[in-house]
């Protein structure tokens, strides 16, 4: 498969990634991402029939039981919010439902 990348592709990905790119950034990334993807296509030439994927290299089972434990205090967790209400334990965001 050969990767071609259009400005519309870049706009679609930017939307998925929640990135509001400028027109200059869109033009730059269309070229740069196409170059990187064209280079990365070489992995498709490797025969991987029957090869399992490596998602991690943990030598042990890293699952644990789901037990509630003491965690960060709510007011502390909200303290860094640019528009937070620590005493209420809330973040303020723009209207979500019309």
């Amino acid at each position, binding site marked *: 498969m050969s990767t071609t990348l259009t400005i519309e592709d870049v706009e679609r990905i930017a939307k*998925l990634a929640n990135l509001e790119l400028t027109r200059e950034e869109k033009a730059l990334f269309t070229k740069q991402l196409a170059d990187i993807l064209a280079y990365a296509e070489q992995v498709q030439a490797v025969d991987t029939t029957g090869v399992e994927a*490596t998602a*991690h290299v943990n030598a042990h089972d890293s699952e644990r039981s789901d037990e509630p434990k003491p965690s960060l205090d709510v007011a502390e967790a909200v303290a860094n919010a640019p528009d937070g209400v620590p005493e209420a334990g809330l973040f303020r965001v723009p209207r979500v439902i019309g």
Partner: protein
Amino acid sequence: MTLTTAREIREAIVSGKISAVEICRASLTRIEQTNPTLNAFNHVVAERAIAQATSIDARRAAGATLGPLAGVPVALKDNLCVKGVRTTASSKILDTFHPPYSATVVGKLESAGAVIVGKTNCDEFAMGSSNENSAYGPVRNPWAVEHTPGGSSGGSAAAVAAQCVPLALGSDTGGSIRQPASFCGVVGVKPTYGRVSRYGLLAFASSLDQIGPFTRSVSDAALALSALAGRDPMDSTSSLEAVPDFTDALTGDIRGVRVGVPRAFVADGVDNVVRRAFDGALDVLCDRGATLVDIELPHARYAIPVYYLICTAEASSNLARYDGVKYGHRSPTSKDDTLTTLYSRTRDEGFGAEVKRRIMLGTYVLSHGYYDAFYLKAQQVRTLLRRDYERAYEVADVIVMPTSPIPPFKLGEKTDDPLQMYLADIFTVSVNLAGLPGVSVPCGFTAGAAPLPIGFQVIGRMFDEVTMLRVADAYERATPWAKSVAPV
């Protein structure tokens, strides 16, 4: 006074030759002198450091036993959280972030008696190989200030090379400890994946990230690794393996150790000055009684695309949390703006170009229609690469290769072409993909009026940092490089 090694500093404090506060002040002064030139530190925590040093001196006066890093000034890469201390990952999006908790490694360092003096500059969210992607400007190489210190942990490497501190921590996702160590002429260790807890490290690519030390000797690196390593309930990927005393590994005896050299892999694209230094290192290892063994890593040539497909995919997911709501920068919104507008405008304003590029690439390779061809394929080739290493370790005890195919380059030289920058990571990224431990050790300098450091790396089996450090230490004992001091 000169700040030498962590071991010497601790020894001088324990024996009463100098106080922890005096050592701390010397470190702070050195940072003040060099930072206008090097830009290695994003912020210094002088008061906090003096308070910690004072308590070490009080403990000594009270006759208490002092920890293995007692009074040792330490710098932390600015992607490691310290409770209440500004932590930015060199990103505008976290410009005002004060973590409500500390990384596990911070607690471990402080219980060993270390004194944290400041947070070091780095590429934004650890994404880069030259430190030029920092929102706070690049770090400069203490050996030649027009050159890069490497990246992404460039500030930590430069701080150790400039003798601001004898020990600094960095993080290594694809070479971000080893490459700047090589470029700055210091020792840098990337431990086995899982050896050191990642709790409190701002995540970039979670299956690859690992925290490790920069030092001016392999012996200090062993000391630091012993303090840092171990299982942590707060990081489920931290290993259950027992932690040996890594200092015991440093016997100086490498007779009969089988050193694997991937001849085909290192045949092409290596700068002549790096090749000569690397060949010289092989000769030294032979002289010390090691046996060189030719090995093959047939899939290592795919390491760059596999790495950049996997790390960007993981980054696109990990960095989704920076949205202007919970912490950091938030774009001003008007009454009619939606939540999505807040997210996407905040992220455009807060992230730098390289971070956006990687988020875009990662989002692309995970998206419908491209997942199998890129992301899944990369994960399968990752398996083949791991098998290459497993096979190589049937005939070799460690593997060696240059850390970087090129010596330190000039700032600005590679910023226009991201792919060219990525290609220079060829010898470091496969080690992260396979989860192996690697250490970069100084092995020479470029010629000329302003010589620049060159390093090579020793790569061990998973959880065999002992053999890796023994080989690196034996090499260091036989050579003058680690004793060289940067002119800054």
